[in-house]
Structures are given as structure tokens and as C-alpha cells.
């Protein structure tokens, strides 16, 4: 269970980015690779805890799952892996470890609102 540590990293990164822009963050968009070693459901639960009373309290974590994509040496093309249990090209069956995508653990966007300026 390292999801809480990861969630705290996400909150820290998003808080920093929000403060730098002078905006309030209402949602964090995360790309989560199937090979990241992080469990999505556990991460989403941990996120609420990690927000605590930080500036991100009440914000949402929106997770985009990134499947593993391999470069098949035979088809010479990117292919999406069907199962983590079998690192073979789904079309021709060639085994490969040429991983193109699937290890992502990346905050890629924030939904933000401008802070209200007191008149």
C-alpha cells in the first residue's frame, strides 16, 4: 500500500502548480499506466485523505488509464497489450519487451478556477 504516498505526491504537485498560477484547483487529471505499480481504486480513496485540509480539499481526482503499448518487432507497429500476463503482440504473437507506453504516473492537467478578486 504505497498509494497514500503517491496520492500525497499528487496533491503536493497540484498544489504547487495551482499556487504558481494563482488559481484554485477543482480537479486533477492523472494518467495512470497499467505498469505503474499503482492500484487505481486505492489511489482514489487515498487521494481524499491526502487532500486533508490542503488547498485541494474537496477537489476530484480523475484517472485516465493508460494500457501497455508495445512496439512489435515483427509487425513494426505499436500494439496495445491485451494482458499484463502475456507480453506478446496481440496480432502475431511475437514476445517483446519494447514497451512504448504503460508506466505513466503523471499529472497531466488541472481543472482550475480563478481565485475571486475582492473588489
Amino acid at each position, binding site marked *: 500500500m504505497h498509494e497514500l*504516498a503517491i496520492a500525497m505526491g499528487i496533491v503536493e504537485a497540484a498544489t504547487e502548480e495551482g499556487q504558481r498560477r494563482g488559481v484554485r484547483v477543482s480537479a486533477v487529471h492523472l494518467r495512470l499506466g497499467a505498469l505503474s505499480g499503482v492500484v487505481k481504486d486505492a489511489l482514489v480513496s487515498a487521494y481524499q485523505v491526502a487532500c486533508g485540509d490542503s488547498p485541494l480539499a474537496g477537489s476530484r481526482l480523475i484517472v485516465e488509464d493508460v494500457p501497455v503499448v508495445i512496439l512489435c518487432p515483427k509487425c513494426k507497429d505499436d500494439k496495445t497489450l491485451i494482458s*499484463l500476463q*502475456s*507480453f506478446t503482440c496481440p496480432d502475431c504473437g511475437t*514476445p517483446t519487451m519494447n514497451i512504448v507506453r504503460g508506466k505513466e*504516473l*503523471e499529472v497531466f492537467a*488541472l481543472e482550475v*478556477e480563478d481565485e475571486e478578486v475582492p473588489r
Partner: protein
Amino acid sequence: MREPRLVEVRRNVLKQNDVIARALREQFQAAGVFVVSLVSSPGSGKTALLEKILTQLQPQYRVAALVGDLATENDAIRLARSKAPVRQITTGTLCHLEAAMVQRALQGWELNQLDYLFIENVGNLVCPSSYDLGEGLRLVLMSVTEGEDKPLKYPTIFNSSDVAVITKNELAAAVEFDWEAARQRIESVRPGMQIFRLSAKTGEGMQGFQDFLAQRLAEHRALAHP
């Protein structure tokens, strides 16, 4: 009226760890020390293998070890019997080692006085896979008593490791370990993965494993000083 809008940021959540791991890797390369980390579930025999290999390597090589554990220092005490310098990293409740912990634990050690540094991760087949420690080689251990399907249950840790080591081979017959099934499953989650099969208790397979480490050390140094 406040309008929500989307801004692109693109930040790797583990960037801090990756930056430290990269710095460590450069430091290890410059010092000429070959760093081997070990991951496995609890009780797979990481400490037993380490005790054996530290003892076996010592007449010829300068070796040291860092050992991660949740609460106790028992592993460090066991490894100290090999007479190699050993430091314990107690992680508290944390289920894995991070690059910063390795960096802190190495303070004061003269890495250029070492040939091998071993890092024993916390016994866990999930969390360590996310964290690069700057190692040159990651071993994933699996004991014959755990059965053959660990690779299918934990593909990510096998995927993030370089070499698999089947341990406690002296018990293989007693637990009817199906070597061919294990081999196929490892191959399925990580095509081309090299596998060692050994017993730290009887010494079976240990010489081959040591020869492999010696070869990797030589390659590591050739790369550093071509």
C-alpha cells in the same frame, strides 16, 4: 462568476525519486561499484541469499549491503555475520525503499572502495516496482515453496526486474515445484528474462550466480572506463 478551465501541466508524480535515482546511478558508475537490488515477497530468502553471496564474494571482492526492513534490525544482524559492512534502513510503516533513503544511508561510505553494493528491499511484491533506486541490476526472487504462479499474479514486479532467481531449490521435490511451468510464466510476463535456480542452503547453483555477477561487474566497469 468563476469559470472552471483546464490547464495542462504534465508532471511526473515520481519525478523527485527519479531525479535522485539518476544521480545515484551516475555516482555508482563514477565510483565503479556495481549495485544489485533484491525484491521479493516476505520470506522468499533475500537475506539468506545475501548472507551466502556476501560471504562467497568476499575473499576476492569488496562488498557491502543496505537492508530495508519495516521494524527490526534482525536482517542486518544476520548479514553482519558475513563480516561485510551492512547498514539497516528501517522504513517504519513504509512498504518499500525510495531513492532518497538509499542516498541517506550511503552517507559517509566511500563507494569507490567497493566492488559490489547489495540493496535488500522490503519484502513486498507490489510497491517496490514503482521506485527506481539507481541500481544496476534488479533481482526478483521467488522461492519454490511459493508455487509457480507468482509471475502471473505480480507481473509488474517481474517486469520492472532484470533477472529472476528461484530460491530454496533444495525444497523443490518436497513441494513438487513445477520448474517448466515457472519458467514459462516468467517468460510470459517478461520475455527473455534470465533465470537462476539455486539454494543458498546447500550452495547449489551459487557458483553460476557468482560468475554471472562477476561478468556484470566487468561489463559495468568497461562501460564506465572504455
